[in-house]
């Protein structure tokens, strides 16, 4: 029977692999060590700047443990979505770190660098051919949208990992990939059940999140021709039918239909069984529906303005009675002054969040709620950083003294910082929630190999 055993080192590369638990996984002789290095959860800035969220120090810590294990057992390492956003330079950074580790330890390995960043021209051509389609909940786009981002990547499926591995790579460093493709690729290549490979990959994508206790450590996955088994590396945790089934609802829109570039994972009819060891759960009955058309999901992010922020604390009872009226008042007053002075109100926007009141949970607060103090965050968003600063400075005297009660003396609110305002830099936006039709799973993917 074909099987494939995967050591999922950690839920997110750079979070800090515990080497002791990792070694427990190595002892059971895995066929692959895998980790996901990416996410869009922290917002568009990372992709727009092709910037990594994780420190180089922590990346090296985790990669060193994985690479050592890989060289000791002579098994491959697959990393997906290098550099958080999967940009080309994210792959390069991972390559530099891995090269350093190999040299420092006297190891030899063939490294594959797999890139999935796409250029504007390629995307414009796809768009003009009608090959870019919106997913549910997508923003409206036009040809112009393709000039409004800094970086774009496509999410690769399992095929690029398979290709790099078949070319003899020991360490596969990929740009943006689906979380699942990293893990599903090798079991598919080894002739395991395709649906089980995908569902197993989905189960371990966040490491120990699929266990009864979240330990922050890795998990061990074994896929075969009928299903998959999963268990934690930490012996104090358990994969139970409940914990494994429950992972399908975590940060997924639909727990029963999960879309990949090559098709859909259907999990409605799965059977979850606790194995006699009490820590392993077996899953069978997953189905995989192959897509008629192979698609790569597109991600891109660009600058939409520049921001300046100011923080001011308020305990004034008159203001606390109705912070929203004060916010409307100060904004209108400030904008009127600035318009008189020649600033165009269409070029900037002032917004407030009243923390301790409703900054986090917007809208009406309960009638019986009376905060003792609140923190006002004023954000100015403008076309340029200079204009954002100008608006913030113009608002400054009002932030200090704008009264809630005009019959009293002017209050002075509490600035915690000097200067009171702070240029926050650009703000960004994700531009697409779309997929691209491709003729071949490798059409938009580029490969480079190096022997170290």
């Amino acid at each position: 029977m074909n099987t494939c055993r995967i050591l999922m080192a950690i839920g997110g590369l750079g979070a800090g692999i515990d080497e002791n638990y990792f070694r427990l996984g190595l002892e059971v002789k895995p066929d692959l060590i895998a980790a996901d290095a990416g996410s869009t959860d922290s917002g568009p800035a990372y992709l727009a700047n092709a910037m990594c969220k994780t420190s180089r120090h922590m990346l090296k810590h985790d990669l060193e443990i994985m690479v050592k294990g890989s060289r000791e057992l002579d098994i491959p390492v697959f990393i997906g979505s290098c550099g958080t956003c999967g940009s080309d330079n994210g792959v390069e950074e991972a390559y530099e770190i891995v090269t350093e580790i190999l040299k420092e330890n006297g190891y030899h390995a063939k490294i594959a660098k797999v890139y999935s960043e796409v250029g504007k021209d390629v995307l414009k051509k796809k768009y003009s051919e009608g090959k870019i389609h919106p997913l549910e909940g997508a923003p409206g786009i036009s040809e112009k949208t393709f000039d409004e981002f800094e970086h774009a990547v496509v999410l690769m499926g399992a095929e690029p990992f398979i290709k790099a591995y078949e070319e003899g790579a020991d360490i596969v460093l990929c740009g943006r990939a689906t979380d699942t493709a990293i893990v599903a690729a090798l079991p598919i290549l080894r002739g395991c059940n395709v649906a089980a490979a995908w569902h197993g990959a989905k189960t371990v994508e966040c490491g120990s999140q699929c266990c009864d206790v979240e330990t922050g450590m890795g998990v061990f996955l074994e896929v075969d021709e009928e299903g998959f088994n999963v268990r934690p590396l930490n012996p104090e945790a358990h994969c139970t039918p409940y914990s494994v089934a429950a992972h399908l609802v975590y940060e997924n829109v639909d727990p029963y239909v999960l879309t990949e570039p090559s098709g859909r994972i259907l999990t409605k009819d799965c059977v979850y069984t606790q194995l006699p060891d009490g820590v392993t759960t077996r899953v069978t009955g997953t189905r995989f529906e192959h897509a008629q058309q192979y698609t790569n999901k597109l991600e891109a992010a660009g600058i939409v303005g520049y921001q300046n922020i100011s923080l001011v604390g308020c305990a004034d009872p008159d203001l606390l009675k109705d912070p929203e009226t004060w916010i409307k008042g100060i904004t209108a007053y400030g904008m009127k002054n600035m318009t008189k002075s020649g600033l165009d109100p269409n070029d900037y926007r002032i917004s407030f969040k009243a923390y301790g009141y409703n900054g986090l949970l917007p809208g009406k607060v309960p009638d019986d709620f009376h905060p003792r103090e609140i923190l006002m965050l004023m954000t100015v968003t403008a076309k340029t950083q200079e204009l954002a600063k100008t608006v913030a400075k113009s608002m400054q005297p009002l932030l200090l003294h704008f009264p809630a009660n005009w019959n009293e003396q002017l209050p002075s609110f509490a600035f915690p910082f000097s200067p009171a305002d702070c240029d926050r830099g650009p703000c960004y936006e994700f531009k697409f929630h779309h997929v691209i039709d491709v003729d071949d799973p490798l059409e938009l993917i580029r490969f480079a190999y190096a022997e170290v």
Partner: protein
Amino acid sequence: MAKLKDIARYVRSKNAGPFWVTIDIFFKDKESYEMVKHSNIQEELVAELYGTRPELVKKFYCENINVIKFSWPRGRASGNADEYDMHFGQQYVFLANAEVEEAKT
């Protein structure tokens, strides 16, 4: 009348990619799950609490784990210029505080 947070084991909200958000309601047993399944905790209430339209809200009943789940597009992608909860991780509080009205039998 009880609040959802008093009936459910826990309520969790999270982004599901940059363009969608989701709320999972976990119950300790079938009885409380079934009670809420037939209560006012439906797409209409979620839409009202989170400022979206009921027809955009997807509802899932996960019988095997006693979970009720709602997902909907967040309107503006995460991390936009007016973002207040990037991971949507605190927004469960609105639904957790909702009063549960049992179906009349």
